[in-house]
Each structure stands twice: as structure tokens, then as C-alpha cells.
């Protein structure tokens, strides 16, 4: 379990990174939590490893234009414990589910997005919140909406000569509520199925809602479920008890699950079992998110 030979460079600027990435077979390393094991198993054989950890600008975690700017080398654990991140409840809900503490201490938020594992939490969060990813290349910088970023399993719209430099998560606004849940074989494993949920209940009788499902397809699956949620709260609005919302949502949950789950499944979770999970988790988290939105609670779990 030793990597095949590779060259290692540690540039001091984004420009230098980009010129290194111009070489064939170059690969960026930040936290290395996915890449290093793959290297050790010789499943990846980059000719050059471009370490971006020496670039100060990429380590910036700061509040910018009503949101959180997370640089490419900012660790997941740093975001989890940053006071500003409290303004993005969904991020705070999801981060404890990303691997284990040890992994989050090394793993980066941008790295998780760039790796694009279809069962990972952060890509789903990015899609749920309409995060924006900044990508640099010799041709300049471009901003990519999360919905455009994830292409397929382990595949993003980032080109081989490009570098993800940051991601921007917008702060939650009043009347927004969020939900997050996942089921894995063990805590810290990649999800068999998970949901990230965003509800906007400015009008409690006509909320808008989005569910992002992960672990069930080749990338996060985004669905607008406003009508589904609205039908559950149409009568009582903000006065609707959570269990009532869940009960009425459970009717349509199987349809949602049928729609979004298209993974073939494996020994840990068959397609049918994952559908059962999506049905259960989506209705539960949607109800919770609606309650949070109408009560304007900011909850982290």
C-alpha cells in the first residue's frame, strides 16, 4: 500500500498552481483525506501532486456579501467551529456527519466538493443552499453554481487545468428552516441515503421547499417540493403540528423516493431499502424544517 512514484510541488501562489496544473497528470492535494488512500492503493497515479496548502489566500474563512467565503484549504472542522457558520444552520447540521473528527481536521470543504462523492454531505448542502464555487484557470476566474458544478459520480465541471479556490454559502434568512439527516451503516460512513432540506415559510400557507437527496444517485438530486409541503400545511399553516405534517407528507414520500433513487444498491443498502430511507427521511426532515422556519428557530441538530 505505497503510492507509485510522483513528483511533489508546493507552490506559493494560485498562478503557480495553475501553471503546475498545466502539466499532464497533475493533481491537486489539499486535505488529502480521499486522495491519499487512493494513491496508497495505486488507484490514482498522478505524475505530479500539487500541494496548495502553502497559499495563504486559500486559507481564508470570512464573511463576504451575506454569506460565508470558504477558501480551498479551510478545514471542515474550522468551519464547523467558526461562529459565523452558525448563520448557515444547514452547514452546521451536516458537518458532524462528514467522516469523523480526525478526518474533518484535515479534510477541506472545497476538497469534498471537488471530490464529488455522490454519497457525501457537503455537495448536497451546496446544492440545497445554492452555494457558488469559484474556479480559477489560466483563462481567469469563473463562478459556478452548485447546481452546475456536480456532473456525475466523482465528476465536476472543473477542468484538469482548473483549481477550486473557494466556495460561498449564503447566510440563512428569516423564515427559512432547514433539515438534515442521513443513514449510514456506522456513524461517519458515507450515507446509504441522506437528505438536506430547505424551507422558506414567509407565507406559512404557501411555503417553498427543496429537498436534496444524496447517496442514492450519481450526484446530489435536487427536487422542488413546495407543492407537496404546501398541501400538508394548506389548512392550518404555521399552526400545523409536526406529526400531522409528517403524516400527510408520508403519502407522497414514496413517489419522491421512486423518482430520486436510481442507484443499483449494494450489500449495505439495496435500491428498495434506500427508497424506504428517502421516503422516511424526506418527510420527517421537511416537517422539521417547516416547523423551524415558522418558528424561526436556528437549530443545529
Amino acid at each position, binding site marked *: *500500500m*505505497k*503510492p*507509485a*512514484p510522483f513528483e511533489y510541488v508546493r507552490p506559493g501562489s494560485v498562478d503557480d498552481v495553475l501553471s503546475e496544473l498545466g502539466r499532464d497528470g497533475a493533481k491537486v492535494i489539499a486535505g488529502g483525506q480521499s486522495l491519499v*488512500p487512493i494513491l496508497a*492503493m*495505486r488507484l490514482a497515479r498522478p505524475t505530479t501532486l500539487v500541494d496548495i496548502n502553502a497559499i495563504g489566500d486559500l486559507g481564508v474563512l470570512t464573511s463576504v456579501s451575506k454569506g460565508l467565503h470558504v477558501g480551498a484549504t479551510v478545514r471542515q472542522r474550522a468551519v464547523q467551529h467558526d461562529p459565523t457558520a452558525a448563520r448557515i444552520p444547514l452547514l452546521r447540521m451536516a458537518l458532524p456527519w462528514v467522516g469523523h473528527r480526525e478526518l474533518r481536521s484535515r479534510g477541506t470543504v472545497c476538497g469534498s466538493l471537488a471530490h464529488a462523492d455522490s454519497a457525501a454531505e457537503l455537495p448536497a448542502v451546496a446544492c440545497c443552499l445554492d452555494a457558488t464555487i469559484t474556479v480559477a484557470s489560466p483563462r481567469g476566474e469563473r463562478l459556478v453554481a452548485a447546481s452546475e458544478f456536480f456532473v456525475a459520480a466523482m465528476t465536476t465541471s472543473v477542468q484538469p487545468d482548473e483549481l477550486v479556490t473557494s466556495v460561498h454559502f449564503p447566510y440563512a434568512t428569516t423564515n427559512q428552516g432547514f433539515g438534515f439527516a442521513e*443513514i449510514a*451503516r*456506522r*456513524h*461517519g*460512513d*458515507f450515507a*446509504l441515503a441522506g437528505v438536506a432540506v430547505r424551507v422558506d415559510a414567509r407565507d406559512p400557507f404557501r411555503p417553498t421547499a427543496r429537498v436534496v437527496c444524496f447517496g442514492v444517485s450519481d450526484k446530489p438530486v435536487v427536487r422542488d417540493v413546495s407543492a407537496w409541503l404546501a398541501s400538508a400545511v394548506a389548512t392550518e399553516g404555521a399552526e400545523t403540528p409536526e406529526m400531522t405534517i409528517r403524516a400527510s407528507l408520508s403519502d407522497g414520500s414514496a413517489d419522491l423516493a421512486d423518482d430520486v433513487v436510481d442507484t443499483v444498491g449494494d*450489500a*449495505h*443498502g*439495496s435500491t*428498495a*431499502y434506500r427508497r*424506504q*430511507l428517502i421516503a*422516511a*427521511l424526506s418527510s*420527517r426532515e421537511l416537517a422539521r424544517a417547516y416547523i423551524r422556519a415558522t418558528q424561526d428557530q436556528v437549530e443545529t441538530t
Partner: protein
Amino acid sequence: MTGLARIEDVPLLTGKGHFLDDLDPLPGTLVAAIVRSPHPHARIRGVNLDRARRHPGVAAVVGPDEVLETLKPFPLSLKAPMPYYPTATDKTRYVGEPVAVVVATDRYTAEDAAELVEIDYEPLDAVVGTYDALEPDAPRLHDTADSNVATDRTFDFGQVDDAFARAAHTVTGRYSFPRYSSTPMECYSVIADWQDTVDGPEVTSWANFHGPFSMVLVVAGALDIPTSRFRLIVPEDIGGSFGIKASIYPYIALMALASKHAGRPVRWTEDRLEHLLASSSGSDREMTFEAAIDEGGVISALRVDLIDNVGAYLRPPEPSTLYRCFGNITGAYRIENVQIRARAVVTNKAPTGLNRGFGGQQLYFGLERLIDEIARERKLDPVDVRKANLIATGSFPYATATGGIYDSGDYEQAFQMALDAAGYDKLREEQRMARERGELYGIGVATIVDPSATNIGYVGLATPAHDRGRGKSGSTEHVRVIVDPQGIVSVLLGTVPQGQGHATVVRQVVADRLGLPSGQVVPRVEMDTRSTPWTLSTGSYSSRFAPMLTSALIEATDRIAETIKVAGAVLLGADPADLELVGGEVRVAAEPERNVAFRHAAGLIHWDPGSLPDGTSARLYEEAAFTPPQSKAPSRTDQINSSLCYGFVAEVVACRIDPDTLQISLETVSTVHDVGTILNATLLEGQIHGALVQALGGAVYEELSYSESGQPTATTFMDYLCPTTAESSFPLTSNHLETPSPLTKLGAKGGGEGSSMSFPVAIANAVSDALSPQGIAINSLPLHPNVLHTLLNKGTNQEGN
């Protein structure tokens, strides 16, 4: 008594352990990487090592030709035409089987060159399923054998057919037990040095092997050298084994061969991929249990059909998984008539071997599921069925039908303790209410006998009595106790611990026995077959330490005490018989003020032995070998007392299954252990927790699974899921009953394996109970939500998994 705190922990927790990778005993040692088969079954048509040999930094590459040129097949536990070498020779028979070894300056270079080894494979059909391997037209693993059955023996004790003919009812269950490991933190590690001397080859090996036991003989056999020319040295610290490292020996032989070709010592450190592919595991087992019962569920006879899937080779000590529990095959129950068919089949999976609980988890999965099945069919409470069949209080020592002699116990009381601690009646009430709410809630019980201090003579049972020759009964444990001129007592401990805390117990026992402050006793953990006393049974397995080593230790320590008293008597002008050892002193028992320091008494023996009475040896160097006379070779009628001691475990588990996610949560776990006299309660509790979590892994999370085509599907920790602290924090009540063994000096039995055997089936019984309203019975493991989902959606009644 809580006992001394672990003295091993400070060095281990501060990074001062001495593991094999911390040692560099032979400067200039080269490093090996192993080329392994990607095919489950393939003929080797050609091997080309030239490119690998030419790679810069490579010292040697050995393949099947080199193996056949120098090595003999490993001696097997029984005569089976299934030759086993450390690499494939004619065919590869499992994914991960070594095919070649590259020796280079470092592991990176060795792995680079390993990619240049060219093997021309002709893939063959593979077979992984146990029943599939029995089919007449199944792919044949060993061309020299006429089937995939490596051993097939039937045993009959009592009047089984009569009992079945007369029985009011018979109950049958067919069960599968999965293959899992204990995943020690430290993988295999070997250094081997081959030297050609005027007397022939000589091999020295450092290995994190908790032997030597009989495996030294097996290695020497393969190397075709006398055991005296094979030297094994075990590092002070081993990062866990749980039996798994007993299968390291083929790599010792392989690295010795690599060293011969490299002309230098060779080190090989197994990585986790290799470990999960090809180290060892418990065997998976298919089994059928059939009971003849009366109206009350009392069992009069038992038929047992066991088929172990031992993987591609009958790697010694297999097929011992079949026989380790032979003497206690009827468990905690009074069953006089027993018929056993014991088979081992070879398949295109990795070879199996020792794993904590060795044979017990497989056996009790069948037996304890059967007890629950009896309860279900006869509409009885599973607790009542057990109570009706338990060996009664006051029946000990109890002779089992198969030759076991249960040394002590009070099963009825221990079982009741477990039920009381769990609040069994309340749990049933909770279940009733839960079911009314439509929830899935189940209660599982297991009562098992926990054998310890194996009598390795049971291996002989695989061979019919008329072919066995002279029987074997190995079961000896050695120790050496030394007192230096300052009265420091050192203990040479050849029990090759892998983290259990042997040194702590030795310090505690000796300090207690000699009346010394614990710091004055210095255990030295050491195994060097050139200087440490050992026999073919020496090593750490079958929970031998507590019953065996401490017995030897008491013998040796008591002789030291006698000598010290003689010296003390000289200094005090007293009669040695009137003296006692207390508080670091030798003193007259009736006049404590007449005393002399222990170290002064020891000093007298070193400095002034001439003052000792005539006939007293100035000997502060005592060895003892504890050999229990109860461990005999198998009888001509195939009975054997397969262990020296038999403890007892009762477990009660309550679980709830989330109806949405089907996640299983253990809400109550009550365990009661009777390990005889408890030597150190802290260590025992640690062993129990460890065994429970290991069992939880096998019951719920872990499986060394294979696809139909023979590809392993759990080759990294992404798929082989060991429970972590997050999965292991179930509510636990652990209680103890102490019925001392009359056969060991301190009354202690082993205790490290009990829950490994009982907890998997206790969980299965609980889950089965939870799902019984759905008509589902659990007949295999592991049990995780996806499995339950499949069961619940089969839509058929009375279906098992």
C-alpha cells in the same frame, strides 16, 4: 478484588511500546512486497520474474519455482491430499493468495517492482458457497483430492436414534454463520534471516506471532530443517491478535525463503489490504441442529451437522474450528445422546483459523437458535426452555456425552442473575406494550459454556481413532521466577500477550503471594525459542493465561517462598515453618516484631549461602510447568475433555428496530460471567467489553463477504465495517458469579472469549423475537437494516434469512 491497574498502559499510551516495526535487530534488512492473485481460481501457466528482478533496488524475486525448489508443503493437521505452500504453485485458489515475493531496498521500490512480475493465469471456475462446494460437479480446488471435502467424520454418543424414535417432538433448524475477523490494530509483521552454516540452513525470525505452539514445528517442517535450527523471537508488544496472528506462520516460511535468495535479512509488514484479503478469520459454517424433545421442551438427544468453510486450504490448525468445542458441544445443557457430523470443505476463499471464541460462536449460534426455535414451536418462553435443560446446580463436576468434564459452575444461579439484572419480566411487559403500538421490539437470551485452556489433543479427532497413532494432549504452561540480591523478583513470562495485561496479573499474583510491594515484582515478557522455556502448546490462545500460567506461577512462587523462609529463619533464629511473608518482610507469624526484610533474606542466599542449613539449595531461580492431568488424548471412542476449564455466560439482550430506517438499537444488555476466581476485575471487565464489541461486529457490522464469482467484496475498512465507540455504547450491565475451578491453583478460568461466543446469537435471538410477529426467523448473520429490509419485504410467512 479490583486488582492492580494495568502496568502496560503507560508505555503503550506514550508511544514507548516495543512492536516489531520498532525493532531493527539486523542492520541491512531488506523489505518485501508480495504479489497476490487477482483470481479466485486460476491455473498458473507461466511466471516471468525477469523484469522485476532487473528493477533498480531489487535484491531478489521468488515465485512458485523457488518455493517448490526449497520448501516442503506445510504438515497438515490430518492426512488430506491438499498440499499447502506459502505461495500458489500450480494454481491460485483465492484472491489474495501469494504468488511471488519481491525483495528490495524499501517497500516503495518493492511495490514498484511487484507490478513488473508477470503471471500468465488461466482463470478457472470458482466456488465459494459451502453447499455449492459439496456438489459433485463443483469446481475442484485440489486436483489431487477426489472432492472438496477435506474431512468428514461422524460421532455417535449414547442412544441417539432411540431417543429420536421415542421423542414427543423433534425440532430442526438450519443455520449459517458468517466469516469475520477480529481485525487487530497491528497487522502481521515478520523479519526472517536465512543463514547457511556448516550444519545446514538456520533460520531466525522475529514475528508478532503469539506462539510458538505447534506452528513452529509446522514452519520447520516446511523449511525442512529441525526445530532446533529455527529460532522464533517475539517482540515484547503485539498490537492485538485475538487468534488472527496464529496464521502468520506461512509468511515466516516465505520470508525465510526470500532471505535465502536475497542473501540478506528480509522484513515484511502486512498492510491492511493484504490483511483483509488474506490473513485469517473465523470459518464460516453451515449447520443443521435437530433436537428430540418432550412436551416440556426437555432435550433428550441432539443431532448436529457442521460444515466449516475453511477456504482454499486446510491450513493448520484447521479443521480445529470443528473440534475446539467438542467436549462442550451440548453447551450448558444436560443432553446425554449426541450425534455429530463434522465436515470441512475447501472453497475459493481465503483460509481460516483462530478467531476469539474459536468455534464457539459458530456452535452456539446453532445451538442457541435451536433452543429459541424449540420455544417458538412449543409456544414456551425461551427462558423456561433453557431452565428445563440447564445442567443443575450441584451436578459439578459434570461429564458431557462427548467427553468434556465441566469443572465447576452454577448455571441456574448465573442465569437468574442475568435475568434479574435485565429485568426480564419487565422487558416482556415492555415488549407487549411496544407490540400494541406496532413497534418492533425483541428480547434475546443465550446461555453458553465458555471453554478455556484448550487440550490440543482435540485436533486428533479429525482423524479416525484407528489411524491416529499415539494420541496428543498438549496443554503445558511454563514460567520462571528469579530473585536477585536486592530482593527484586523477576518473572520470565513466555505467554506472548497481545495487550491482555498478563504482566499486570503476574505482578499482582506474585506480590500477593510473596507479601511484597507490587513494584518489587518485575515481569519480563519475552519469547525467544532459544532461551525461553516452551512446548508445543506454549502461546496465547484459548484463554490459557488465567487458568494455566497463574497455576505454574503459584508453583514456582511457592518454592521461592520456601527458600526465602529458610534464609529468613537463619537470620531470625526461627523455624521456617513458623514464618510468613507479609509487607516486604519475613516474620514469625506469631511474633510479627521478629522480622527481617525480604531483600535481606534474599541477600543472604546470594551472599552467604554457606550459612543455609545442610540440604538447602541456594536456589532463587524456580521454574514450573503446569500440566493438568485432566487434559488427556482423545479416547479410542472419540471422547475428549477438549478444555481444562469451562466457564459460563448468560446474556439477555433487548433490542428495538426503527420501523422507518430498520436500524437496530440495543436497549438492554445484561451479561453474567462465571470465570471461576476473578484475578483482576478491571482486566476481566475489559475483556468482556472487548468480546462483546467483537461479537457486535460479527452480528451486525462485519462480514468478509465474497461475490458468487469469488471476488472478496469487503477489502477495505470502507466495506469491512468494524464497530467504533459510536456503535458500541449500548447500555450494559455486567455481573459475575465465582465458582472457582478445582483444577487450577487460584480457581481461575479463562474469560476473554465468553461473550464472543454468546453475544452474536443473543443479538440474533433478540432480532428474531422482534420480527416474530412478521413470521420471520433469523437463521444467519450479520443483521443490519438492509438485511432486515429484504426479510420484511419477501412477503412470505415463516421465512428465515
